């Protein structure tokens, strides 16, 4: 299966995305008998209208940025990790369960909860990494299957052996105050998770561009044959990349638990791990551009609610646009290949 994921200039992609957002959005709004001007006005008002709505836009940006960085890291290594959703869910569960189970000391609580998310997501990413490195199992299918297994496993655990909350509720108990991420903007759901995500993007940019590990990872993705001849252990690189990719998505799940919900719920992600694929591709798989792409999709995600309540346009229109963006951007790889030949 596909090994390399060559990147093209982001400019063309941005044009495609803008045309899709406004073109498809307008057509959908006209079908719903809403003027596109009113519809998009409601969307942007829903994303920026009040201080609370701006905060919510940045919350969505954060929730997309973590899994998108994870996806990008794996894609750069030539690995199709489409399991960010499952890694995020497992990370969120580990964080929520640990935080609610053990009352940790104040300064330790938040780091331990986030670390639990990193480990949970990392393990869930390492499984397809090991299956690929040791048994040659294709990571696309195994990550896809592990997404569903993650939701089923956490549902089983929180309603069965590891039940903390009410019987039958698919969530853990609540996190104590000490284990909750502090607010960045008071009286909103925006926490320091936003800052952590931005710093992580900058660190990841540095790791990819300036370290030996980053070089090996990119070499394994861009030219696996050459990388192998240069002595890079492809199996080991794949395992490390998948583990890190899962750990980043798991950290994202932990920040949703510790910052937004203050407990783990099996429905904590409305598909962040899948939308993250679009975010990563629009961001050209470059961590710094992915920050910008996350903001764009964050605006769409938080504005969708305003668009539905104020202009009566069903918010699924935004999901439809995101799906089409993914289909449109799937073409970038081979367009790059054809250009290079």
């Amino acid at each position: 299966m596909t090994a390399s994921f060559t990147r093209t200039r982001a400019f063309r992609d941005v044009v495609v995305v803008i045309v899709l957002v406004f073109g498809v959005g307008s057509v959908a709004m006209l079908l719903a008998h809403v003027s596109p001007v009113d519809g998009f006005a409601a969307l942007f008002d829903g994303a920026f209208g009040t201080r609370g709505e701006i905060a919510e836009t940045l919350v969505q940006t954060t929730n997309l940025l973590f899994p998108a960085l994870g996806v990008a890291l794996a894609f750069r290594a030539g690995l199709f990790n489409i399991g960010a959703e499952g890694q995020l869910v497992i990370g969120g569960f580990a964080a929520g369960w640990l935080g609610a189970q053990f009352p940790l000391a104040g300064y330790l609580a938040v780091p331990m909860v986030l670390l639990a998310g990193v480990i949970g997501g990392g393990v869930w990413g390492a499984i397809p990494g090991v299956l690929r490195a040791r048994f040659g199992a294709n990571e696309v299918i195994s990550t896809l299957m592990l997404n569903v297994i993650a939701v089923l496993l956490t549902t089983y655990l929180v309603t069965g052996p590891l039940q903390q909350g009410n019987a039958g509720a698919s969530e853990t108990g609540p996190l104590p105050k000490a284990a909750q991420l502090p607010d960045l903007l008071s009286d909103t759901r925006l926490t320091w998770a936003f800052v952590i995500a931005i710093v992580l993007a900058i660190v990841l940019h540095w790791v990819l561009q300036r370290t030996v590990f980053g070089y090996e990872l990119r070499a394994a993705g861009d030219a696996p044959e050459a990388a192998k001849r240069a002595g890079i252990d492809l199996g080991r690189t794949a395992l490390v990349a998948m583990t890190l990719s899962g750990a980043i998505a798991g950290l994202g799940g932990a920040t949703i638990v510790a910052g937004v919900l203050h407990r783990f719920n099996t429905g904590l992600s409305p598909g962040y791990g899948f939308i993250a694929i679009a975010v990563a591709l629009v961001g050209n798989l470059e961590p710094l551009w992915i920050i910008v792409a996350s903001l764009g999709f964050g605006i769409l995600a938080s504005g969708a609610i305003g668009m539905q309540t104020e202009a009566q346009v069903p918010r699924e229109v935004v999901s439809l646009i995101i799906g089409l963006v993914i289909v449109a951007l799937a073409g970038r790889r081979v367009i790059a290949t054809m250009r290079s030949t």
Partner: protein
Amino acid sequence: MNATTAAIAAILGLTLVKATPLIYAALGGVLSERSGVVNIGLEGILIAGAFTSVAVSGATGNPVIGALAGIVAGMLLAAILAFAATRLAVDQIVAGTGINIAALAAAAFGLVLVWHQPGASHEVPALGHTGEIVLIVLAFVAAGALHLVLNRTPWGLRVRACGEDPSAAESAGIDALATRFWAVVIGGAICSLGGVYLSLAELDLYSDGMTAGRGFIALAAVIFGRWTPLGATGAALFFGFFAALQFSLQQAGVPSELLQALPYLAAIVALAGFAGRVRAPAADGIPYVRP
């Protein structure tokens, strides 16, 4: 008939009901993948078939026209993937993921447009019990037919050649891009029948999320069935059997989540080679670009 026989008959009947949509989707997946196109979009095609057949049956009052429209919708959605995978040579995994998200959202949007309510459609004229039996029998006929087509006809040989080595196929005078395109589109037609079965035969309406990941279970069945029509049908029956047993096993204390996870675990086990040698078509998932 005594109680035990009746219980066994009920389980077997329920197995057929649960397996039928999986068989259609898995057969569509087998045809697509044997031509070299990985079809992650099976779930989206099921949704297209399920939603469109209900919408058209409601509009025309004729469930047969509805079913045919469902097949056309599945073919159109598959054609988008097929066009992207052949002429544009895009990444099939990414495109298929996008197709699933777009189809689910389009159907949810369509519910609001057509019936002015989110969540579920109104009840529409359905295919009924006779239609359900016809579709169940047809699933097995389709499995046998696809087995023969793939293994005993020139077109089947061409499809398999494109899945193993498209450039060699082209050297032998086969149009690899066209062969792949039609394999995916016909696969989409077969898969969409699974969606039609769910909404218009088992039920008489479309509701959000009614396909419930069956496209992914079908993908697991394709792998567990080693990319063959009969193997995939067997895997679909196996998964359907456990779905049918779910209620009884739950009574016996087996967690339902474990039973639901079974197809996905089985696929991973098969992929990792723990259940004997499993090999995908050599060129599966690799876009073919003419030199």
